């Protein structure tokens, strides 16, 4: 979201960045690390509010009955240092992008994240793409037939999609498509092992992707449908369009061009805002479908009090959200610099 600036200035949209716009972008870029720092500190404190730490978990899983062992474990993991020292060390390591080792899994956090992130990204990208195009199509349709039964049906559908929790949707899809019809696999990302062609692998992943993608994306289909609908409506209500329609013409091309200009901005902004909530939705969907992504990994990490892993994932997802929002801001500014300086 664009932040404050207080001078009014006019620059024609579509030209290269004006000086105030450039200054704004630079300010945003400069402030990003600060935001990240606050995020890191916040996360650190929240996680250290906990009673019980990962040493308890590891000891518990080893069913180990040795106080010496637990003490040594704590010392090895640096858990017996004073809080401020741990925070300082932590920030220093984050700066070097050294996310450390996951205590409970014995593997470097970076490696674990790198292993599981692609699955989540695949899921998120497919879900949001589905949402974007389905939402745009439905919204356009609803607007063009505004007030008709079709419009009402689409609007009600959109509301239903918005109101259904992703995990419920996921369970429902499984009940229908796996239990009843046995069309689609209900868990995991792939079931093909050993040597198989690239094509077989892709097809297999695609089959596994269908239900999670729909479960995650339907909520955003609703959002985009409504956005598109109101954007198109705004365009349609312009006088010259109304005149054309009164004459029986349906100037689709003009509608499309004006709509695009009108709708693209909010749609794109919405995308930037939704990354965080997409990640949250991914946790639930990955749980229901056993999808091997970082959403599920994060959930397990919290339960195992694996602080480095949780911090690593939080850090990474915050980084992702920041990056996307900066990108959106850049596009936003490029497309309409006036807005920046309100």
């Amino acid at each position, binding site marked *: 979201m664009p932040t404050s600036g207080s001078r009014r200035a006019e620059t024609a949209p579509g030209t290269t960045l004006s000086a105030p716009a450039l200054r704004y972008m630079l300010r945003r870029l400069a402030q990003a690390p600060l935001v990240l720092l606050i995020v890191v500190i916040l996360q650190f404190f929240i996680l250290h509010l906990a009673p019980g730490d990962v040493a308890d978990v590891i000891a518990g899983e080893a*069913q180990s009955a*040795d106080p010496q062992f637990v003490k040594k474990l704590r010392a090895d993991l640096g858990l017996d240092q004073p809080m401020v020292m741990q925070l300082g060390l932590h920030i220093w390591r984050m700066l070097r992008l050294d996310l450390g080792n996951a205590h409970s899994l014995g593997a470097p956090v970076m490696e674990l994240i790198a292993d599981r992130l692609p699955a989540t990204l695949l899921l998120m990208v497919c879900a949001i793409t589905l949402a974007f195009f389905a939402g745009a199509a439905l919204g356009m349709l609803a607007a063009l037939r505004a007030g008709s039964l079709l419009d009402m049906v689409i609007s009600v559908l959109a509301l239903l999609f918005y109101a259904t929790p992703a995990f419920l949707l996921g369970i429902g899809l499984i009940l229908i498509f796996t239990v009843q019809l046995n069309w689609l696999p209900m868990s995991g990302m792939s079931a093909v092992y050993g040597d198989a062609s690239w094509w077989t692998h892709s097809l297999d992943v695609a089959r596994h992707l269908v239900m999670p993608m729909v479960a995650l994306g339907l909520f955003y289909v609703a959002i985009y449908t409504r956005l598109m609908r109101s954007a198109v409506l705004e365009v349609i209500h312009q006088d010259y369009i109304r005149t054309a329609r009164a004459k029986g013409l349906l100037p689709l091309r003009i509608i499309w061009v004006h709509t695009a200009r009108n709708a693209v901005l909010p749609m794109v902004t919405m995308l930037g805002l939704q990354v965080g909530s997409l990640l949250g939705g991914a946790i639930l969907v990955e749980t229901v479908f*056993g999808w091997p992504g970082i959403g599920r990994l994060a959930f397990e990490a919290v339960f195992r009090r694996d602080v480095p892993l949780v911090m690593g994932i939080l850090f990474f997802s915050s980084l992702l959200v920041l990056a996307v929002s900066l990108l959106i801001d850049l596009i936003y500014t490029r497309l309409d610099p006036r807005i920046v300086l309100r």
Partner: protein
Amino acid sequence: MLSRILSTAVAAMLAGAVALSAHAQAPVAGGALTIALPTEPTHLNSAIDTTQQVKVVAGKIFSGLVKYDLNMNMQPDLATSWNVAPDGRTITFNLRRGVKWHDGRDFTSADVAYSIMKGFGPNNGLVRSTFSNVEAVLTPDPHTAVLVMRQPAAALLNALPVATATILPAHIYDNTDIRTNPANLKPIGTGPFRFVEWRRGSAIVVEKNPNYYEPGKPYLDRIVFRVIPDTQSRGAAVESGEVDIVFHSTAAAADARRLGRLPNLQLTTDGYYFDSTVAFMEFNMAHPILGKAEVRRALAHAIDRKFILDNIWMGFGKVATSPIHYGLKQAYTDDVPQYPFDMRRAEQLLDEADYKRGADGTRFKMTIDFVPFGDQYAKTAQYVRQQLNQIGVQADVRTSDFATWVRRIWTQRDWMVNMSAITNASDPSIGVQRAYWSKNIVVGTPFTNSTHFRNADLDRYFEQASMVNDPAVRRRHFVGAQRILATELPVIPLVAINQFTIVNRRVHNHSNLADGVYSGYADVWVTAR
């Protein structure tokens, strides 16, 4: 005429032969097996970890000294024969020759020595105390290992299944930190299967070991362990044939019997001898009210164990009379004090113990904790809360995650009642003693004596039983221990659980060993689809 009789006879014999061979099917080599993993393991070294997901994979990659059939008769594995000295303080194992580690090196007695003295011996939570008796492991030659013990350890020979007493390669582990050794993630063993691939979050793949020491085995080409974290998904996966085995009761128990009745599946409770878990409700003896045996006995009458067995464990098990599992026939007895379900008696006993109902109907308040594993203990906590509320004990349930729960029960000790369970393993000296022995009260260390129960007679019974080799004498001591446990009631025993496995009928020999799915699976074969 004669030729007619002859030809009929021959035809009959042929038919008989065909029918017989259809029954006694010969193992077929080849094929893959898929097993559903409820949680992804953190590593694959079962010597230092007792969780199911580590054991089930490690059991295929490593070998143990011996195997056990369903009657707990020992059979050769890495040891071809063994011999206990008359005073019970020396055990000699003669080791198999020609066994190679997956990296090509030879297996020798040095590996056994390392594993017992530095591997699972000090590090495996389940058998630590059993093996703490071993003073040294002598290796007079590369194929002989001699255990020298301070005292006889009767249970030791019952404590050698591969996924617990895992024989690790000394040449990889010696002089390293066993917890952080990279081989924990890429294990090298002597078992029938070799580690091949770990797709994080997805699956672990092991393949046939071409140099396995049992000729012609293993029959399977490959075993895939698929990570399926959701209970419902696992049930659906085995139903549709996507996986072949769902083990250790990790499908929804309410669904299990239905699944077992399907034509392509079967349900079995065999192969969990080393589990033998008993679910109970334990008390913090340090609590002023619950520290009194009369109160505990009163509360025992308010709980309908049959209801818990039928509705929470779905009938998989039996009502328990003590923390010792009925499957451990050499030790179990049900001739102990029991507490029939009788709400009025519960109220009466509480009145007699001088905890009458106050003006608002409450006798005293209670907080119930439970081990956050599966949902049965949570459900038991809810059930018990309801029952206690009805007899005037105002109870609240508290949820914690595993780390908090561990810390609360063993370190902070700010708890009153805890729904949990105890794994007997194959012998009460291994699994049960550690929970009630007064010498195992160690604040800050998990899975020691959590109730802080102290009873000199009980201590004596357990100590004697662990040192004596005569089964009849041991039984006498165990019976004595059970009587004390059932009278003093540091825990109210609820259900002796039978774990179940749901298996596709195309899989053969999956549960013919005492450690079932946790064994090497060298004998397992599958019918082609």
